């Protein structure tokens, strides 16, 4: 009998990519062993916290850790940014959730990550490379200062196209510009995988639709349990309704109703705003350095959380 010790979900390393983006490496050997590309976890920072879904950005089976890259956009993710130090523990981490991405045996694929979607696209790029595919990476950031994991991607991608809004690194333009250039150079791309904010994934799906290239997107709508029980994460895929947590999170981007998805992502925004304001207020009262106003939400903010 293997011992199944209760994991304490200890944070073993942390890296801050920018003012809003940070990486947490969490100890969970069983989860590290089970995780596959495309899956996510649900995290609770503390006992009174909300359950937030986060895509697994990396896993290390030998070290027994999983990596999460988080963007501080709401109350919970900002609170985690303030509190999650190396040596502290998360209250709950459950997963891996969702159906793993189907990698199969493809010859040439393109992996597109924008904003917070950059980290979760990494396991897919690596899995495709390991399966023997020619991998074209397309990564989008707002500017040079926000770029992270470039080396990590270069070591697994045959080609890497970096896109920034202001042209301070790589090409100037959105990831859709990178996709356009890659398709122009390679007529034989079999599949595109795109992860990022819904508006970006919608743009990617539109960019590949005329070329009839199969395009998978990873959806991360509002959810509570992540096990198919609440139905909060229901999304329209063609004529059918699916639950992203157990039927996805990967879906055919050419069938996803992105407008519906984006409309539904805003449904707790009043409460979310209230929670964030209270949090900022309490930070100011404590006199913490975190009390500064968050940057206004942009398309790069992947609303992956309830809060």
């Amino acid at each position: 009998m293997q011992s199944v010790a209760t994991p304490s979900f200890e944070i073993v390393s942390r890296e801050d990519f920018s003012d809003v983006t940070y990486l947490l490496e969490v100890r969970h050997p069983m989860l590290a062993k089970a995780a596959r590309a495309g899956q996510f976890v649900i995290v609770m920072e503390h006992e009174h916290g909300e359950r937030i879904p986060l895509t697994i950005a990396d896993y290390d089976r030998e070290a027994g850790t999983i990596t999460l890259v988080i963007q501080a956009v709401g109350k919970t993710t900002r609170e985690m940014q303030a509190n999650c130090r190396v040596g502290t523990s998360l209250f709950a981490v459950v997963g891996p959730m969702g159906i793993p991405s189907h990698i199969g045996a493809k010859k040439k694929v393109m992996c597109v990550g924008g904003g917070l979607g950059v980290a979760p696209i990494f396991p897919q790029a690596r899995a495709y490379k390991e399966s023997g595919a020619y991998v074209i990476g397309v990564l989008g950031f707002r500017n040079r200062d926000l770029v992270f994991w470039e080396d990590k991607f270069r070591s697994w991608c045959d080609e890497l196209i970096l896109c920034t809004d202001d042209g301070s690194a790589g090409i100037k333009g959105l990831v859709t510009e990178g996709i356009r250039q890659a398709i122009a150079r390679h007529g034989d791309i079999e599949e595109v995988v795109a992860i990022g904010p819904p508006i970006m994934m919608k743009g990617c799906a539109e960019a590949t639709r005329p070329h009839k290239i199969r395009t998978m997107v990873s959806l991360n709508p509002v959810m509570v349990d992540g096990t198919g029980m609440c139905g909060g994460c229901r999304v329209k895929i063609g004529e059918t309704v699916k639950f992203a947590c157990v039927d996805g999170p990967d879906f055919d981007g050419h069938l996803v109703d992105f407008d519906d998805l984006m409309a539904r992502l805003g449904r707790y925004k009043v409460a979310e705003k209230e929670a964030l304001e209270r949090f900022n207020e309490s930070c100011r009262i404590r006199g913490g350095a975190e009390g500064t106003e968050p940057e206004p939400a942009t398309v790069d903010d992947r609303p992956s959380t309830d809060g």
Partner: protein
Amino acid sequence: MAKKKTIRTIPQERTPAQEQDPRERARNFLEVSLGYRLEEALVEADRCLQCADEPCVRGCPVGIDIPGFIRKITEKHYHGAYDILTDTNLLPSICGRVCPQENQCEGVCTVGETLEPVAIGRLERFVGDLAIKEGWANIPYIEPSGHRVGIVGAGPAGMACAADMAKAGCEVVVYEAFHQPGGVLKYGIPDFRLPNEVIDAEIEKLRKLGIRFECNTLVGRLFTIEQMVTEMGFHAVFVGTGAGYPSFMGIPGESLNGVLSANELLTRANLMRARDFPSFDTPLQPGKRVTVIGAGNTAMDAMRVSMRLGAEKVFCVYRRSKAEAPARAEEVHHAEEEGIEFNWLTSPIELLGDASNAVRAMRCVRMELGEPDDSGRRRPVPVPGSEFEIETDMVVFAIGTNANPILGQTSGLKLNKWGYIQTDDSLATSIAGVYAGGDIVTGAATVIQAMGAGRKAARAMKAYLGLRDSDCVYTPDTDDPAGRRFGIPAAEHNFARVRLA
């Protein structure tokens, strides 16, 4: 011996239980029914005829010796009553509150043929609550069998199965995907019907039996059922994951904001404590005019939770009539008292939204009952030209659930055509050593039916593992040495101690 009781000599009126005033309770989450006080319990217990026929025992899904425990109450031997209850049901405080007694024990009570039936549920709760208050816990004599049993899901089915397997000497681990054990008792049934302290107290009793609860564990994805019976070394596994996947109707407007499943509403409000937002972080934008579709227990819970969250008006929309409503009679009654507006024989046809994509109204059509359908209930048919609108800013679907797909996706378990796990009569699945019961086998049912299934599976698992079926094995009240012979407690005198190598 007292003179034999007859229907004429017993107290004629069913003893009412004290309840919070409807106007007051509709705005708080405290328990509605305050339960019997001692003197009330004694009067009600005296109403049991102790009839020879005992139809109530057959009416109980777990076969509690109902006349037996009631007799102990009349004898004022309350711990004895608790012993009898816990012989068959480790969770009397829960079952006394949430069982649909009117369709089970009380529905077939002999007294009920002439008068109101004995309030068996309230008496069960009285004994269970007394045990929690007094700190009674019946820890049976357990001889380790060397077997390891894994349970998937810490809801009522899993809890009942775990208790039986632990009593049979197995080392039991219960895996739960949520961060707290309890399943539907925690996320679904609200505090005013079943307080969390009661659930926690009952779970604590299971821990005392040696049962280990592992939360935050999604079986199927973190490890599979097959891994449990192979590399993880479990000799038997019970799957009680519940039904899960909530149904919607497929009418236009279901993806509007403000439209959600009862599971989502209840989980946010109960387990995640959104009702205490912002002290707890989970948000829930409560509606001012809430419309709940369906008339089962879950629908009643959703309506009454909405009321307590501050709704001005709560409507129920159900396509059949009150007589067909699947909820416990007491829940419908409580909901009516609290001011829920019922629209019987009404079916939604469309949800209408505003410019910000939020729901603003529900279009409905009136129904009338036609010919009986497959379920024997008269089929509701729309009345032409009867469409109307209900102004509403929150719509809750409480029309049932479908099978959760996770175990089907991740294991070789054979499923039926609806996606539920297929079992034989003993609840054995297509994988040797793996048993299943509760909603994931039958589709949505009640807490006590799930518990019954958990116990039924436990019997089959014990047979599979070659263990004696040891119900009713409690150590005596006192550790009196006179009650022990050769160091063997009295309750154990008749057991042959044979251990197979």
